[in-house]
């Protein structure tokens, strides 16, 4: 209790009080604990989604569902596509939604960060549910927009697929975490300390 306010330097990053620059990268114990928990949780969650039963019973059906919803949205927008498994096929273009494109990795990062943060379990649960839902919504926008970009401007597809949307997805995950930890979780930490 109350240790969050104590200023413990991270020995790797800061030795002594030599300058403002060095002081600025100090971590207190709570932050260090968060980083360790985050790294462990992220690694564990990553390994879990690669387990064959998890992939077969959770990830694969989830990705197929995402494909179907994306196809419905594309048809609403007048694209005339069909969904087969994880493939969205149109008149002259098709996208296959694979691991890395289903938004699960950004969700893992968000879930690991929220679960690792020192906050009440109810706030964590709310953050996990709302954050994951927001990321899924963004991922639908990503898939729909990537299909439309690929169909119209094929040369831009790779750039948007790799550099732009992947960056946006993880930035959204980071922003959701920053918003959640600032609005909800920090009240708890302040109350404790």
């Amino acid at each position: 209790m109350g240790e969050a306010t104590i200023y413990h330097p991270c020995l790797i990053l800061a030795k002594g009080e030599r300058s403002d620059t060095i002081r600025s990268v100090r971590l207190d114990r709570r932050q260090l604990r968060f980083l360790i928990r985050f790294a462990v949780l992220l690694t564990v969650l990553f390994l879990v989604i690669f387990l064959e039963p998890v992939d077969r019973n959770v990830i694969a059906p989830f990705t197929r569902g995402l494909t179907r919803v994306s196809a419905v949205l594309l048809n609403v927008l007048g694209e005339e596509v069909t969904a087969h498994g994880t493939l969205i096929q149109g008149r002259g273009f098709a996208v296959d939604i694979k691991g890395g494109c289903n938004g699960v990795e950004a969700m893992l990062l968000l879930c690991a960060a929220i679960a690792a943060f020192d906050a009440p379990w109810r706030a964590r649960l709310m953050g996990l549910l709302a954050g994951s839902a927001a990321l899924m919504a963004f991922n639908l926008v990503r898939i729909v927009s990537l299909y439309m970009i690929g169909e119209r401007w094929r040369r831009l597809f790779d750039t948007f697929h790799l550099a732009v949307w992947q960056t946006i997805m993880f930035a959204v995950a980071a922003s959701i975490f920053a918003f959640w930890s600032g609005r909800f979780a920090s009240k708890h930490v302040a109350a404790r300390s």
Partner: protein
Amino acid sequence: MWLRVLRFIAALIAAAIVWYNLTPFYDRFLAAAASPLIRIDRRFRDTRVFAADRIISVRAKEKRSDLPPADIPADQLTYNVILLAALFASNRKPVSDRNVVAFLTSTAIVVVLHVVAVLLSVESTYAVRMNEWSSAHYGTVARYFWLYAEIFYRLVGMFAVVFVCWWMGSATMKRT
């Protein structure tokens, strides 16, 4: 709030353009920096590591060597700098000394990570994608280790490191 979103979008576009245009030069630096690391593994002691056309290549120095050639798309290892720049640009005081120092420190960490990522990709490529050569030179555990290490880096690790750097920078800025 909206100003921060706008700064994020502007930085994303600017960083993507800078990254795309500087990548060919940066790849050469990465190849040169990763080369001594790669050669620590005795399987690659007599190799040349070089970059051309956004690809980092590994070739045997001797023509008689049985080492197969490997080509690694370098773009897929380094584009997390776009996220790094965009996140730091979206901070409250983006041009404050602390934010700039935190950004530069984070960039240095990410550059070191890129060198390690080249090593991971080379090991993973040779461990699992060279058919008979792979099974002759790597054990089962080693093959899985390098494969999962590479996948972890590409799918979440490269972004997680950027997220941690940004979070640490933001946390220390809020506190001071």
